């Protein structure tokens, strides 16, 4: 049989609806009650009034006005986008060859080892990983010690509490998320395509440029999007390794909530979601044709 049918045996349509409600209901209700309600409260707060010490349920657009007129926020957004773009670019540059290399490993034992090395850091908290980078990159830390020992530097290099440190640590956190989609696409690729190219006279480089690379584009794109979004939403790494010098929206959100300026925090949250959406949607439109072309061949 070519058509897979839902084998719900001999039960009325109404019976099925009841069953579905029972199965999906709890999860859906949970999300509505917690997530949607909480977001609703957040959005409502964005139009409330902050007196300086407390929030009053008086409708006003002052938080929005402040956010869109004060150049401080524009700078924060700019720095955040810069951070996310640089991080994404580095992740792709490192992640693609990594994924490619993994697909070339022949021994299953080494494949498993590669997966463990790349993905197991995800099992630890972002705090542990951030702290690890502090240890390595600090003034008295490992890198400076090695560089000084090799007489490559005269004075300790500042590698933390700046853009560099945050980037190094953030790339580390996000690299597994970059590798995964690319790896998935590469593994699914029909190996006979490469063999055909080879048979037709293409060198390995030629095969890579003309066959592997174009066909892996959807994976690369998905990886880029995922990495970018995660970088934009990151809190722990910029906070611990930024030393206050790196200001991004997530940090502002936390700060404003702590300072009781909930309306402003809400506006920043909405701005964050809106910004990420806008960039994601526009890049989807931009690459729409290229994506459609390659997925047709699957």
């Amino acid at each position, binding site marked *: 049989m070519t058509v897979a049918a839902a084998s719900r045996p001999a039960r009325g349509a109404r019976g099925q609806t009841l069953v579905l409600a029972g199965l999906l209901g709890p999860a859906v209700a949970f999300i509505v009650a917690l997530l949607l309600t909480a977001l609703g409260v957040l959005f409502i707060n964005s139009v409330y009034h902050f007196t300086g010490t407390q929030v009053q349920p008086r409708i006003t657009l002052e938080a929005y006005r402040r956010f869109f007129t004060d150049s401080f926020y524009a700078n924060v957004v700019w720095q955040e986008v810069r951070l996310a773009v640089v991080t994404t670019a580095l992740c792709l540059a490192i992640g693609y060859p990594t994924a490619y290399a993994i697909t*070339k490993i022949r021994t299953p034992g080494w494949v498993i080892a590669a997966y463990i090395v790349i993905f197991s*850091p995800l099992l630890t908290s972002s705090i542990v990983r951030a*702290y690890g980078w502090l240890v390595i990159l600090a003034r008295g830390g490992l890198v400076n010690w090695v560089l000084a020992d090799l007489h490559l530097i005269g004075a300790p290099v500042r590698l933390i509490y700046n853009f560099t440190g945050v980037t190094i640590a953030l790339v580390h956190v996000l690299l597994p998320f970059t590798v995964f989609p690319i790896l998935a696409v590469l593994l699914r690729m029909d190996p006979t395509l490469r063999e055909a190219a080879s048979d037709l006279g293409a060198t390995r480089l030629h095969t890579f440029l003309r066959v592997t690379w174009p066909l892996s584009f959807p994976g690369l794109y998905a990886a880029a999007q995922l990495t970018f979004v995660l970088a934009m939403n990151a809190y722990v790494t910029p906070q611990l390794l930024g030393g206050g010098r790196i200001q991004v929206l997530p940090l502002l959100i936390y700060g404003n909530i702590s300072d009781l300026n909930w309306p402003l925090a809400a506006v920043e949250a909405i701005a964050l979601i809106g910004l990420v959406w806008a960039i994601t949607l526009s890049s989807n439109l931009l690459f729409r044709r290229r994506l459609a072309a390659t997925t047709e061949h699957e």
Partner: protein
Amino acid sequence: MTASRRDPVAIALWAFLALVGMYMLAPLVFVVIDSFNPSTYGTFPLAGTTLHWYANVMQVPEFRAGLTNSLIVAAGATVVGVTLGTLAAYALARYRFRTRELARSFLLLPIIVPAIVFGAALFLLYIRIGLYGTLTGLVLGHALLGLPFVMSIVAASLQTLGREYEEAAMDLGANPFVTFFLVTLPSIRPGLIVGALFAFVTSWDQVEVSLFITRPQNNTLPIAMFNYEQNYQDPTLAAISAVLIGFAVVLVLVAVSVLKSQEYRKLIERQ
């Protein structure tokens, strides 16, 4: 890699992979090394080793409380997440209905919304309904975050498994409930375990949401560590991190043994 050992491309790829591997493991390795560092500022090189910081870990009351809270919350979040997620996954994998893709996307919302935004929103909600600073609030928040993972993993398991076992059970006289508990659940055990692991780890390592909804006296371990880091930078933090890394290593071993177990392999082979 490719046949000839002396193939320069293969060598380059291996070397690159090794470098990436070192990059990925570096912070974890050096945290562990640093946990034995006698210097209070964690400077390199190490002038000897000490277990002083490990002893210190247990002295910090926030860490002890944090550990207990994290365990309770993670366990609770796992139970809630696995239950809701498995039921939802069953609906998505076994039934066909018009709003199915919409439902699937809806259930992925918790990972689409930025955690920091969710945390802030949850704080504002919890303040109103009195769940701020409670373990229950944490359990619910973490369960929500783990739900999409459980749902995806279990749904994939169910899809790979196929309906045949369930049909066989029904053919032999089992109604849908009996079938679910006697046949379906045992058959997707590996998927359930992996889903549970994801839900557990998501809660265990969760920071952005916990930051907003924990009370200073009632923190989870990551928050306790986060707070500690703001005030002190001594290797106590490295010691507790090393313990957590050890915990993660154990998890990896469990996962690998689950995937390698003969039972699982036979289950995923079609008979």
